[in-house]
C-alpha cells in the first residue's frame, strides 16, 4: 500500500523534526516555566506578568518600547529614580549638586555592584552616555542627550564619511566626565531643571564595554533583578541580584510571558496563569459586570494623552489660516460622551496637554464644549480664512486596525451635526500613516503621547515647541517657546510650573490640537499580589517596583 508507506515516511519525518526541536526545549528546567493548567497557583514568591511580545532589545542603550522597558526597569538602575509619588529620589547616585548657573550637575555615586560582582563606577556612566550619543549606535532615545555639551556636534557627524577614529575622538568631547570613581559630572549647554529626570531613564544606566544583551547567558544587571532565562518569543525569568545594594528585594522570581494577543492574555489571567492582567477595551464591560473580576480591577491615572492635531504645515490649509476654525472644531466635541461611549468610560476628559499626576496639570477647561459657540466660530472662521463651506473638503486621518475607527466616527458625526460639514475619515496602515504625517499631514489627524519622565517639559517642549520633531501640527508660537525656555532654567519646581502653565495657556488659546482623553489604567490584579507599587509613569502597572512585590498564600 502506497498510503501506508507514505504515512510511515511522514511519521518518521515528524519524529525527526520532533527530535530536532527537543534539545532547545530540554534545556529549559522542566515544569518551572510553563504553569500547568490543573495545578493551583504557586504559593511561592513568584510574580507572573505578560510583556506582550519579545522585547526588541534588552540593550539599555537601544531599548525604546514598552516590553523592553518593562524588563529593563528590574534589571537596570539609573543615577536617580522615583518614589511612589514620582518624586525624584537617589538611585545609584546618593545625591547631586547643580552648579550656580545650572549648567553643571555633579552626581555622587553610592556603593553599587553589577550582578557579576564588579563595582559600578563613574566611568561606566561616561561610557554609557557616550554610547547613547554614538552616531554608530543610532540609538532611538539618543535625543535625550541633546542638552549635553557636544551632543549636537556629535550627532551631526556623517557616519558615511567619518572614520571610527574621528567619531571616537568626537565622543571624547561629550560633556560627561569622571574625575574620580565616585563622581560623575555632566555639563549642559544651558540650564535645564528637568535634566535630572533624564538621569532616571533606562537609557542612562551604567554599563561597561563588552557587555552583551542578546541572551540571558552573560547578561549583566545593574538593578535589583538579574536575568536567568530568556527563551526567545516565549518567556524571560528574573531572579534577585545577590550583589544588589538597594532596597530589599522581596520577590524570588519574576516570570515574563510574551502573549501577543490581548484576548489570550486576559484568558491566561483568568486561568490563574498570570498575576497581573491587561484588559482589551471590548472586554471592559464584561469585567465590570463580573462580580469576581471587577473586584480585582485597579484603576488609576496614566501619564498619556490621546489627541487630534490640526495641520498647520500647509500655509494655505484652512486650519493654518484660521484660528477660529480650529476652535470651532474643538468646541463641537462632547468629550465626556465620547469617552463614555468609545472608551468604555475609561479615561479622563483632557482639556490641555499636561496630564493630572504630573506637575503643571491645569484643570481649566480652556475650550469648553459649546455647539452654539462652535457654529458661530465656524462661520467667522470661514470668513477669516476667506473660504466657503464648499472649499473645505476636509479629511481626518488615523491609523487603521487599532480601535480608532469608532472614535474617529464619533468626531465626524459631531462635526456633521454642528456644521453640516462632511469630514472624510481616512485610515492608513501604521507605517503609511506616519509617513503621511511627515510629508503631508491630514487636515486633522490622530496621535497619542506617553510620558518618558514625569515632567511637563516632556509634554510641552517635546510636543509643541517650534523645532520639535514630534510637533506634527507644525504649530509655532515663539512666545510659547520663550516661556518653555525660561521654565527650563528655573530651579524651583513652583516657578517652573507657573511658566509651563503660561506656555500651555498661550498654546491652548491658539488651539493647534484637540486634547481628548488622559490615559487611565484598567488592570486586573490577583488578590494575592501584595505591595505592588503602581505609578502614573508606568506603561505596565507596577513595573518600576516589581522587586518589592510579595505574594500572599492562596
Amino acid at each position, binding site marked *: *500500500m502506497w*498510503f501506508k508507506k507514505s*504515512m510511515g515516511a*511522514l511519521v518518521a*519525518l515528524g519524529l525527526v*523534526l*520532533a527530535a*530536532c*526541536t*527537543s534539545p*532547545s*526545549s*530540554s534545556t529549559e528546567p*522542566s515544569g518551572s*516555566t*510553563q*504553569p*500547568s*493548567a*490543573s495545578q493551583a497557583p504557586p504559593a511561592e514568591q513568584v510574580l507572573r506578568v505578560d510583556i506582550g511580545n519579545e522585547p*526588541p*532589545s534588552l*540593550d539599555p542603550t*537601544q531599548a*525604546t518600547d514598552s516590553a523592553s522597558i518593562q524588563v529593563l526597569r528590574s534589571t537596570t538602575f539609573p543615577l536617580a529614580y522615583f518614589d511612589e509619588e514620582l518624586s525624584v529620589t537617589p538611585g545609584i547616585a546618593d545625591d547631586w549638586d547643580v552648579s550656580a548657573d545650572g549648567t553643571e550637575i555633579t552626581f555622587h555615586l553610592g556603593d553599587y555592584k553589577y550582578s557579576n560582582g564588579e563595582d559600578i563606577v563613574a566611568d561606566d556612566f561616561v561610557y554609557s552616555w557616550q554610547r547613547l550619543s554614538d552616531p*554608530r549606535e543610532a540609538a*532611538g532615545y*539618543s535625543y535625550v542627550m541633546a542638552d549635553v555639551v557636544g551632543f549636537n556636534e556629535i*550627532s*551631526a557627524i*556623517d*557616519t558615511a564619511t567619518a572614520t571610527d577614529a574621528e567619531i571616537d575622538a568626537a565622543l571624547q568631547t561629550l560633556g560627561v566626565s569622571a574625575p574620580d570613581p565616585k563622581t560623575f559630572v555632566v555639563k549642559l549647554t544651558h540650564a535645564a531643571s528637568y535634566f535630572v529626570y533624564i538621569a532616571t531613564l533606562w537609557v542612562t544606566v551604567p554599563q561597561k564595554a563588552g557587555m*552583551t544583551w*542578546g541572551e540571558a547567558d552573560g547578561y549583566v544587571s545593574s538593578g535589583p533583578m538579574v536575568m536567568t532565562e530568556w*527563551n*526567545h*518569543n*516565549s518567556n524571560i525569568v528574573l531572579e534577585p541580584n545577590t550583589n544588589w545594594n538597594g532596597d530589599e528585594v522581596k520577590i524570588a522570581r519574576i516570570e515574563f*510571558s*510574551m502573549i*501577543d*494577543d490581548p*484576548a*489570550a492574555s486576559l*484568558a*491566561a489571567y*483568568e*486561568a490563574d*496563569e498570570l498575576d497581573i492582567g491587561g484588559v482589551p477595551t471590548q472586554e471592559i464591560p464584561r469585567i465590570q459586570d463580573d462580580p469576581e473580576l471587577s473586584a480585582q480591577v485597579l484603576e488609576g491615572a496614566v501619564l498619556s494623552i490621546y489627541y487630534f492635531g490640526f495641520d498647520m504645515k500647509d500655509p494655505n490649509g484652512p486650519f493654518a489660516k484660521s484660528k477660529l476654525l480650529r476652535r470651532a472644531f474643538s468646541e463641537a466635541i462632547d468629550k465626556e460622551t465620547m469617552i463614555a461611549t468609545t472608551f468604555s468610560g475609561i479615561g479622563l476628559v483632557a482639556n490641555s496637554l499636561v496630564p493630572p499626576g504630573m506637575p503643571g496639570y491645569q484643570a481649566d477647561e480652556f475650550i469648553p464644549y459649546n455647539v452654539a459657540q462652535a457654529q458661530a466660530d465656524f462661520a467667522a472662521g470661514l470668513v477669516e480664512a476667506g473660504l466657503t463651506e464648499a472649499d473645505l473638503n476636509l479629511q481626518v486621518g488615523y491609523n487603521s486596525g487599532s480601535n480608532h475607527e469608532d472614535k474617529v466616527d464619533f468626531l465626524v458625526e459631531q462635526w456633521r451635526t454642528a456644521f453640516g460639514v462632511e469630514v472624510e475619515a481616512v485610515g492608513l*496602515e*501604521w507605517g*503609511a*500613516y*506616519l*509617513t*503621511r504625517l*511627515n510629508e503631508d499631514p491630514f487636515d486633522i489627524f490622530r*496621535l497619542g*503621547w506617553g510620558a518618558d519622565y514625569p515632567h511637563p517639559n516632556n509634554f510641552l517642549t517635546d510636543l509643541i515647541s517650534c523645532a520639535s520633531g*514630534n510637533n506634527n501640527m507644525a504649530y509655532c508660537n515663539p512666545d510659547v517657546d520663550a516661556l518653555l525656555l525660561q521654565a527650563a532654567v528655573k530651579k524651583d519646581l513652583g516657578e517652573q510650573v507657573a511658566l509651563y502653565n503660561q506656555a500651555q495657556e498661550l498654546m491652548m488659546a491658539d488651539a493647534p490640537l484637540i486634547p481628548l482623553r488622559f490615559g487611565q489604567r484598567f488592570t486586573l490584579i490577583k488578590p494575592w499580589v501584595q505591595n505592588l507599587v503602581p505609578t502614573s509613569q508606568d506603561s505596565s502597572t507596577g513595573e518600576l517596583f516589581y522587586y518589592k512585590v510579595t505574594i500572599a498564600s492562596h
Partner: protein
Amino acid sequence: MLGYIIRRVLWIIPVLFVVSLITFSLMHAAPGGPWDREKKLSASTIAHLNEKYGLSDPIHIQYLSWVGNMVRGDLGPSYKYIDRSVNDIVADGIGTTAHLGIMAFLLSVILGIPLGVIAALRHNKIPDYLATFVSVIGIATPSFVAAILLLVFFSVTLRWFPTHGWDGWAEPDTMVLPTIALSLFPIAQIARFTRASMLEVTRKDYVRTAQSKGLRERSIVVVHMIRNALIPVVTILGPLLAFLITGSFIIETIFSVPGIGRYYVTSIGQRDYGVIMAMTMLYAAAIAVLNLVVDVLYAYIDPRIRYS
C-alpha cells in the same frame, strides 16, 4: 525520473529569484520605513540608521547585496530585534513551527480522510450530513475565532490545558490546543476533498466491475475506491503541508507559540526588511519543494503518470 527531478529542482531557482525580486520591490515601494515611530526619531538618528544598515544605497545595490549575502547563507540583520540576526530568529523558531505544523498535518490527514470516506460511503445519509456539517463549520470558522473558543473553554473554564507557551514533548499538554486549532481548517478541507473524490470514484467502471464480480465490500472500498480517490487529495496535501510547517500567524499569536509564524505579519508592519524577505523566501521554497514532492509521488501512486 532522476532527470525530471533535477530539472524541476533547477526550475526552483528562477522561481525563487522572481519571488524575491517582486517581494523586495513591493516592500520598498510601500510607504513608511523601519524607523517610523509614534515618538519620532531625529533626522540625524534616521540618517545614521540608514547608513548603519545600508539603506542609503540605491535600491538595486541593496537588492544585489541581499542576494549576495543570502547565497552565502546570511539573511542579514533584523531592524526590530536589534541584537539578533535574521538567521538567529529563523533558526530559533523554525523547529517549533515545523513541529507544530507536522503534528497538525498528521492530525488533519488522520481525521480528514476517514471523515471524507465515511461521508461518501454513507452518501446522503446521517453520517454524511454529520461529516458535511462538521467540515462546513471547520471551513467557515475563522481560525482566530476557533482558537479563542478553544482557549476559553478548555483553558479558562475547564483548565485542562495551559493558555500559553509551548514546551514540545517535554510538556505535551502545551501542544494540544495549538495543534487542534491549526488542524481544524485542513481537516475540513481534506474531508470535503476526499468525499468529493470518493463520490466520483464510486461511479467509475472499475468499481462497478469489482462489485459485479462479487468482491467483498471492504476490499472494494479499500483497494479500489480509497486508493484511487486519494490521488487528487495528495495534490492539496503538498501546499497544505507547506502552509502548516511555515507557521500560522494567528495560531502562534493566540497560543504564544515561539515559532516563526508571527513574523509573517509583524515584520511587514515593522518594515523589518530582512525578516520579510526571509519569511517570504522560506514559504516560497517550501511550496516549490513540496509541490515537487507531490508530483514525484504521483508517479508512484498513479500508474498512469510517468515522467521522462
